[in-house]
């Protein structure tokens, strides 16, 4: 294997140009000053970061982290047993495809369908009223509940796919061997199954938590633009109040926060394994 991996260098180069350079642009912009007529201008300043360390913005960050966490846990709790049943079933490929097909219809339209279901005169309320479970329609739309439901709905396959591909390689004969050695059901799960599927869980959580923090049109549409999350804040900074440096600074802080969280997660994962 002495040949130089030319293809690897090409991939590396392209990612550098189209991945790293945009990031650098954002980093540089975050230190510039705001000029509404030319988007950005000198001088370099730390103001954009200083302005963000206030309780008001802190509240937004905390709310976003909380909602993303709930979304991730929600997805995990449903997707993990779901992937398990999928792996054990005989119709894996078609069941998997059935998960993906809804996502080939525009997520925007499906989110608007969720509105039709959660509205005051919507289908859910109609259903619950008919069954006499409630006697007054519930105001579910334009709340955090609606936002979380929308996020879980849209990010579900991102949790299923990595967990499934990882679980599929699990050798179930290990269960037989462990049972022969006297392991109980809980042992089977915590000592054998969970550690071996951990990688898929981590990939899935990463693929859900990150978009949950940064998607803005779902909280916008389902939350009634009332509860602002980080994604909405960044959108507003770039496109509404036209403060590109501040938008860039918020993005950098968000990026740093997420990287820190990921390192903690990875550290815990490595410790657990050793």
């Amino acid at each position, binding site marked *: 294997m002495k040949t130089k*991996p030319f293809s*690897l260098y090409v*991939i590396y180069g*392209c*990612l550098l140009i*189209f*991945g790293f350079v*945009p*990031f650098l*642009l*954002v980093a540089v912009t975050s230190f510039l000053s705001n000029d509404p007529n030319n988007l950005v201008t000198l001088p370099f300043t730390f103001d954009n970061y200083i302005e963000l360390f206030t309780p008001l913005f802190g509240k937004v960050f905390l709310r976003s982290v909380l909602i993303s966490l709930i979304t991730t846990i929600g997805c995990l709790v449903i997707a993990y*047993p*779901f992937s398990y*049943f999928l792996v054990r079933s005989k119709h894996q*490929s*078609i069941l*998997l*495809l*059935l*998960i993906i097909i*809804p*996502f*080939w*219809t*525009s997520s*925007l*339209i*499906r989110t*608007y*369908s969720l509105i*039709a*279901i959660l509205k005051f*005169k919507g289908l859910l309320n109609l259903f619950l009223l008919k069954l006499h479970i409630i006697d007054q329609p519930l105001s579910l739309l334009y709340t955090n509940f609606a936002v979380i439901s929308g996020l879980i*709905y849209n990010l*579900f*396959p991102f949790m299923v*796919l*990595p967990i499934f*591909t*990882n679980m*599929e*390689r699990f050798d179930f004969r290990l269960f037989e061997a462990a049972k022969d050695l006297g392991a109980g059901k809980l042992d089977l799960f915590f000592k054998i199954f969970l550690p071996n599927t951990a*990688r898929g869980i981590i*990939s899935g959580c*990463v*693929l859900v938590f*990150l*978009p949950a923090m*940064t998607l803005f049109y779902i909280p916008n549409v389902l939350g009634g633009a009332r509860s602002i999350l980080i*994604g909405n804040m*960044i959108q507003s900074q770039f496109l509404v109040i036209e403060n*590109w440096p501040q*938008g*860039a600074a918020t*993005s950098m802080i*968000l*990026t740093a926060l*997420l*990287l820190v969280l*990921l390192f903690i997660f990875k550290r815990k994962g490595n410790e657990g394994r050793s």
Partner: protein
Amino acid sequence: MKTLLQKLFLISVYLFLYIPIIVLIVYSVNKARFSLQWQGFSTQWYAELLHDRELWSAFTHSVLLGICAAVISTATGLFACVQLFLRPKRKHQRRSLFAILLLLIVIPDLVLGVALLLLFNIFAILLGFFSLLIAHITFCIPFVVLTINSRIHTLDPNLYYSALDLGATRTRALTSVLLPLLWPAVVSALLLCFTLSFDDVIISYFVAGPDFNILPLTIYSLVRVGVTPELNALCTFTFLLSMILVIVAYKLSRKSP
């Protein structure tokens, strides 16, 4: 009893996923234009859809873009993963590659879209099909790598080297030994990339040009007046088409021994 619970759980998950789609289909035959109350059965929206040239061209453009982006990013990502997997000593390269990929996932879509727009201006790349393709490949590759990587680590690199020892060429070893083992991950990655590209609004918003319109942006702009039932009709059509394709593919895969 266990299998009954299993079946119930699976069915409820699928129900949860499909109810909004069913709602979509029902509203595509609702007479009302703005309201979400049922006002009678009507196929007028399908008739309107048939004559809507813009929506159809946007649809075909998105499909084309999706397929190109999915194939290119999956191939690239697969190659990168395999190369790194087979050379465990190249830690430095692997670390830096993963760092960039991580960065790409973590950057909010909105910011990546804006940054790419600025980049395309610096390189004087005209906005159109290629700017969209480059942007889509850029945000798809990290997902490909994550998906394939979570599977590739369950493999033994010695499988590849033993194949070489037994006389196989590098290509043969790749396609006949590694690829079949990685196949589910590759298919997952392809599907994931196509879905991401077909449905991407935020990044495309910034890097799309005037002469290559794509479906998500057309929908996003129409949504301003409220979701027209015509859009529901289009989504119903997309959904039925996907179902038919899947059933056909499944039947065909069944036939092969």
